[in-house]
């Protein structure tokens, strides 16, 4: 539970700090570039997560479902 509180505090802190910095919409040309949004297509990311999940004890951190197959 202590670990969970710590993680939530980090997220809350990052969110609070976010209110201080403002990048205006007209300054986001570079942020909108494909590589800056995601440099992996959905299929590539899904395959990579699937392959690593079948070979490593750790999983998660991508916000996507893991497992779901008999490849463990």
């Amino acid at each position: 539970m202590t670990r969970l509180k710590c993680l939530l505090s980090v997220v809350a802190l990052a969110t609070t700090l976010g209110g201080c910095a403002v990048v205006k919409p007209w300054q986001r040309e570079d942020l909108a570039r494909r590589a800056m949004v995601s440099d992996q297509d959905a299929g590539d990311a899904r395959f990579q997560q699937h392959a690593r999940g079948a070979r490593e004890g750790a999983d998660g951190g991508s916000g996507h479902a893991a497992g779901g197959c008999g490849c463990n």
Partner: protein
Amino acid sequence: MRAFVAAALLLATSLAHADGEVSVRGAYYKERSTRVEQPMIDAEFDTGPKGHLEAHFLVDSITSASAATGTANGQEFTETRYEVGGDYTYDLPRYIKVGGQAKYSTESDYFSTWLAAHGEIGLWEQNTTLHLLLGHSFDEITNGIAVNSGAIGTPARDEHLGTTLVSTSVTQLLTPDLVGNLTYDFSNLDGYQANIYRVVRGGAQPVPERVPDLRRRHAIAASLRAYIRPSRTTLVGAYRFYVDDWGIVAHTPEARVIQNVWRGIDLRARFRYYTQTQANFYQDVYSQDQISNPDVFVTADTKLSAFQTEILGGDLVVSLGTFGVGGTWKDARIELNVERIWQNNAFGDAWVGEAAFTVPFSY
């Protein structure tokens, strides 16, 4: 008639702003005793001015001589898995998005259904984006086909596994060329988590592996993505910390470079390092007493041992427009990817190759 024409124009106008993309990809994975071939198709498109739909279908063909696939004494065996999934997102006022996703996977001995709901809100002129996902999978596992075919001599079993995922993330624009992301995933697994074919040796006779029915996994991942305009280079640095109540602690730093070398041509390089401790019940060798005691957890799962992995990969992405192709196909792109994986465990080293063809479109 005027109303009809006005409605048609309005519809045409809204459709003209709709975008989509279809991608066909083939992935190949090869290591010492296992190879995987996975053709897949992904599609995403706008469904009106506020809706967005993503869908995929894939075939996962795994050929292995490992006993963990239900084969008899090193015989090669091919298992085919089919997966279909979709994700729908709808835009609400005030930079809020809500949606749901579903996925179904089926193979001869494993069936999985995944359902999830997700929401997102943009704050401070969308400098900050908060995302929350809550999902659950319902898995059924059986060794009935292998038993009935005579491939294995153990009794038939039918097991269940439920997995709940809570994922929250914050994405923060830091400067006009720097963006950060922090993601926390919590997974609660409740049910059968061993491999239904794998056995532990060392005693008078092999016994099915025994692992806990409960597992709580925490993963926190942070990334920074920067664009260097003079050289048209994108740099990505990422790190993931993982811990679970089976005793595994893992660290995963990763670096990626995406270099635009010419109009429509990108080169990518990637290095990923992974290290983990072993599960607290994992041993290379178990005693006869441990193996024969049903209250003691025993496993032969390499993923639960301590090891390190290094991945070095490269991509080439080329748009057809580079070769003078125009019209609809101008932005279509070809992607080729090769990766080398070094694993200092029983799996051994591996090669990965991918090829993809993607066509964006407007309608």
